[in-house]
């Protein structure tokens, strides 16, 4: 099981909103906020994984109703706090009295990958792999639920980047190989009338050789 943010393939969602509007911001505070997060990425208090992991810990009732930049705002605010750059009291002191900050659930221990990137030669393009389905709950795992336990094919060797389950804690996280893994829709949703490929990029530790 993964969190409320893991939306791929979930049933029940309606029409795509705001289809004719490609704007990125509607109000100035939205890009003031993004200016902060980009300053953080550039100067190092936290990485995008911290912000993503905070957002994954927003309570579902708020996650599902908040505007996009409302979720980003919590991601940024608690990333600074969890990085030790601010305290919640600092934030409260500048917040008007009648305004309340939604809380997020506390982080769980890191999810670790291979201690040393495993065997760098264990996979090659063309190999069939199965995505693990035994991830610990509530950690920062970037494998969508709809591919967990499913088998696909490696189509491209991706870059080596910090392992998300550790990078979300700001400590220097070990880099690990990513792979572009291509799945067939028929293998993910056998009842779907639509065929075609879906490609997801996944860290080496998330993968097992296909049986």
């Amino acid at each position, binding site marked *: 099981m993964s969190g409320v943010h893991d939306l791929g393939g979930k049933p029940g969602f309606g029409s795509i909103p705001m289809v004719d509007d490609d704007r990125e911001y509607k109000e100035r505070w939205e890009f003031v906020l993004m200016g*902060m997060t980009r300053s953080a*990425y550039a100067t190092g208090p936290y990485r995008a994984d911290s912000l993503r992991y905070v957002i994954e810990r927003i309570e579902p009732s708020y996650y599902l109703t908040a505007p996009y930049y409302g979720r980003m705002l919590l991601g940024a605010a608690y990333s600074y706090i969890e990085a030790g750059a601010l305290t919640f009291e600092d934030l409260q002191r500048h917040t008007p009295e009648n305004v309340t900050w939604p809380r997020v659930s506390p982080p769980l221990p890191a999810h670790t990958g291979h201690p040393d990137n495993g065997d760098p030669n264990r996979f090659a393009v063309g190999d069939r792999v199965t995505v693990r389905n035994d991830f610990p709950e509530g950690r920062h795992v970037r494998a969508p639920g709809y591919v967990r336990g499913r088998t696909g094919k490696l189509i491209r060797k991706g870059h080596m980047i910090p392992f998300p389950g550790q990078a979300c804690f700001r400590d220097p996280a070990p880099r690990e190989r990513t792979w572009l893994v291509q799945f067939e829709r028929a293998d993910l949703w056998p009842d779907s009338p*639509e065929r075609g490929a879906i490609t997801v*990029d996944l860290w080496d530790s998330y993968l097992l050789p296909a049986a």
Partner: protein
Amino acid sequence: MYNDNERERTMALRAALLEKGVHTHEQMEEMENSFDAWGPHNGAAVIAKAWVDPEYKQALLADAKAATEHYSAISPFDWDLVALENTDTVHNVLVCSLCSCTYKPLIGQPPFWYKSLEYRARLVRDPRGVLAEMGLDVPREKEIKVWDITAETGYLVIPQRPAGTEGWTETELAAIVTKKCLIGAAVPQVGGAAGQSSNNAQSVEA
């Protein structure tokens, strides 16, 4: 209860960061002012060049990051990039089902529909239905390939150059490549309502 005070809370966070010296005014303003440098006009220029210059197109397909380095040098992100070519048999479309990732130096901050819960939930399972709803009917004979961005490898869709653009300059060609085209949610239209929506950071309500 929280949905109408994001502005106040954003300003509170900004004030707290300044007080603690986490960021300076100058840093944050520089980042805000750099936003208009990131956007779909960059991606559109890359596509137009690829349409008129076969060698550049091959370079883009072989190593998109190197071929577009000029545009991504301004970014604080260290993403990889892969170019995806639409053909007579394949249409490519992008999504980030887990959050809202896109390759911002070339595409910009993603639009609201891309970040919506509905698009994130539905595209992977029913891309043809979602695209039709958005006004793009992909012929049945074309496979729709969906690319879900999860590990900081971004994608740039290379649309097919439409008929009726023979002899156009790169500037004219770039003008018909919209943000939706770069994501794969539309294809370039000749004679349609062109016009590039960009970051519009400087033109929104205060």
